[in-house]
């Protein structure tokens, strides 16, 4: 059997991490191709439900990344996001969801190398953890048989 290839969904902000990931590419830095990048305006926009939806639709790991504190394009979006993540992560841990599969990070538009490093390390970690089979899948989601109509 082929080696397990983790599926990683990255929710990134438009202004820093997305531009940072772009820089990784334009700098010709190779990194693991397991990541699917979803661009959002700001980390403040990254609702915790998006993270649940990613897992519910087959992700093995999630990266959430945006501007460093103080650098937010909208002044304070990442400060609000940080508070929310602190509580959300505690709740995930309390219900027994493996928090090692959710990585929060700050990657600026100048940190192309950091992005490559981050993705590579997350992919390596999730590869050791294996597929996230315990997480319940959303019915009718991708990779599942369509719901049968009686």
């Amino acid at each position, binding site marked *: 059997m082929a080696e397990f290839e983790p599926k990683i969904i990255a929710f990134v902000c438009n202004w820093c991490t997305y531009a940072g990931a772009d820089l990784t590419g334009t700098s010709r830095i190779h990194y693991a191709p397991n990541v699917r990048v979803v661009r959002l305006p700001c980390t403040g926009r990254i609702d915790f439900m998006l993270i649940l939806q990613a897992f519910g639709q087959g992700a093995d790991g999630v990266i959430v990344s945006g501007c460093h504190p103080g650098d937010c394009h909208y002044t304070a979006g990442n*400060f*609000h996001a940080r508070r*929310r993540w*602190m*509580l959300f992560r505690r709740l995930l841990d309390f219900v*027994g969801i493996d928090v090692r599969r959710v990585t929060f990070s700050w990657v600026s538009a100048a940190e192309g190398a950091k992005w490559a490093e981050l993705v590579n390390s997350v992919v390596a970690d999730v590869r050791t953890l294996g597929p996230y089979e315990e997480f*319940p899948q959303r019915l009718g989601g991708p990779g599942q048989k369509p719901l049968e109509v009686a």
Partner: protein
Amino acid sequence: MELLRDKAKSLLTGGAVQVVIGYAAGSATDRFRPHFARSADDADRLIFGEGCRQNLAVYLLKPEVRAMGKAAVVGGPTTLRTLLQYAVENQIADGLVVALALEDGRVEELTSFAAVEEYLAQRPHGLSDGDRAELEQHAARSQKDRWAYWSAELARCIRCYACRAACPLCYCEQCITENNQPQWVPVASDAFGNLEWNVVRAMHLAGRCVNCGSCAAACPENIRIDLLNQVLAQEAMTQFGAEAGYSVRKEYALSVFKPDDKETFIR
């Protein structure tokens, strides 16, 4: 009991309030139902006992109840905290609600938020020792055991939304779970939707929950969903020093921030 009825009667006949929200006898001796006393005769049916635990503040924001006029609400510390949290969230103006605080058979009439604050300041804050011990017991288990426990518990959820109806702070006119463009939470009761609903409910109450326990009491499957709220309340307290419902000047923990909020997990 007589004290409560007399107080309610004098408030109603004096015109200080138009309705007193309290408890009346239910379908069995150990069951109670909410009672909306609008006249002195109605007030004779008010009772109070061990099983009167529902947080009656939930009715204050209902348009039908608002239309009745000024209201008095009967309850203990968590009901009072709900009033202050409503004030923080600009749901009720000061002076439009009277709290009838019950304790050891005594009734105290609190007519302003300042009076409620003062009353609560003299009472113990935070989780009770029992609740704290229970949370610690849950948190001490391994991640696999916690998942085994919660996935089995949440599998029983029938998504009746009784928790939402009972919660005084779940007052959105349209809930995210009813949104179907996009359909965030699947309608059917399945493992994913149940997990998502309960996580969403807890997160939307994070830093706002006053720990009245009405959600768990309303749950027909007896799932301890209040633990999810408690763990977040505790975290909001340790991380941000935020405690809902003790002061009208304190802001909701997630609507403010400090540039130096400390975390240990962001890479």
